[in-house]
């Protein structure tokens, strides 16, 4: 029992890395996805091409490869650049999830009926007013389910940072497994991930309920 508590405590220490990475990624990649979607739905051709390359490269290559590329590759490309492991991981996750959120938000924006723009235009609203007051609030409701899915995936994807030797939940449990020849740490880790995702699901369910007042 003593032993289980001890290992749980050690694994939970790794949890702080996981949680920091999770929130930092969401905090930055959601606005990034939002800006990306605005760029993709704008009229500028240059922005389209830029965003199209960004999303297809990021979504078309493995996240693991991207982590290696940022941590080992970027410092080679940009002399003098030094990234610590956590920063490299966070940067990769933000760029990666930003691309997925860009596509989700773009789809959401484009799913809003043309009539909403037309009604706003004949009432005299500018493009910015229309986007901020009419289109985006409706988009948020529509993208909640896919954003919830991505967030669940993100909780699990954070485990990939073990490849950089960052002491997250997975790495800490693996350490104990290797030291003590027991698999219980893996079960503890699984329970922690499950618990985190339970909270994520709960959070989005609440949010969806709040938006359910209309439609």
């Amino acid at each position, binding site marked *: 029992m003593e032993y289980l508590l001890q290992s749980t405590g050690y694994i939970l220490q790794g949890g702080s890395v996981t949680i920091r990475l999770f929130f930092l990624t969401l905090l930055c990649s959601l606005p990034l996805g939002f800006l990306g979607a605005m760029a993709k739905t704008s009229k500028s051709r240059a922005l389209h091409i830029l965003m199209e390359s960004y999303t297809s490269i990021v979504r078309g290559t493995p996240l693991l490869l991207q982590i290696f590329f940022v941590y080992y590759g970027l410092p080679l490309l940009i002399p003098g650049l030094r990234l610590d492991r956590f920063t490299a991981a966070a940067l990769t996750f933000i760029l990666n999830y930003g691309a997925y959120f860009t596509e989700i938000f773009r789809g959401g924006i484009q799913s809003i009926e043309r009539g909403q723009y037309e009604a706003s235009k004949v009432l005299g609203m500018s493009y910015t007013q229309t986007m901020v007051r009419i289109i985006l609030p409706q988009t948020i409701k529509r993208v909640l389910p896919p954003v919830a899915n991505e967030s669940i995936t993100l909780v699990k994807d954070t485990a990939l940072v073990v490849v950089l030797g960052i002491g997250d939940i997975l790495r800490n449990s693996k350490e104990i497994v290797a030291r003590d020849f027991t698999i219980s740490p893996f079960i503890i880790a699984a329970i922690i991930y499950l618990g985190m995702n339970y909270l994520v699901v709960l959070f989005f369910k609440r949010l969806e309920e709040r938006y359910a007042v*209309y439609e």
Partner: protein
Amino acid sequence: MQYMSRSTVIEVKGLHKAFGKLEVLKGIDLTVSKGEVISIIGPSGSGKSTLLRCLIHLEKAERGSILIEGRPILDPDHPHISESEIRTRCKKLGMVFQNFNLYPHKSALENVIEAPLVVAKKPRQEAIRAGEQQLEKVGLSDKRDTYPCHLSGGQKQRVAIARALAMEPDILLFDEPTSALDPELIGEVLAVIKDLVKEHMTMVIVTHEMSFAREVSDKIVFMDDGVILESASPEKLFNDPDHPRIRSFLQKML
């Protein structure tokens, strides 16, 4: 014909509009005077909606001229009228759509006060008071806080009319305001429009409701294949149209 001389509020000359190769408006001339009610009728695809949409600049026509209260939004002599100027001039116009286009995430009152708040920059209390009056006018005071999804089609359209009125337009455009409604709900919307007729609101109404058009209009415009075939008083156009195509259209409608 209450007034001897009426000032012109919309003047359209030689309006042409094409979508790619498809010519939809082939030289439209139309004058709307203050306080006048004009109904536009005609077969499907004849360009009625496109004409209305050009008037309020939802579509950009490529040839001809459009003056709103004497100011051009389309003018061959001034090809570069700025978007903001056009927007200012089009504020004289309001529009009601076939599919209502209410904001689903806003209550009835919020729909009505949205533009007064963000476009006209009215103080909130004032906008709410005016909005409540608009809702009362269309008989929906009790639906003030209801979201569109809980309103019937007729109620939605009445909120949409209140929303358009809230910007205090000089001219209201209606594009088939009752075509998306169940038959039993058409009457309540037409009643609201009739109230506006009594207040001498200037209106251009695209409609398939022939008896309504006949009752309220000062002038009926018959469109066919991108042109105005005939423009006349309701008595003339319904009883004795010049064109045989109009006669056969009316026979089918009645």
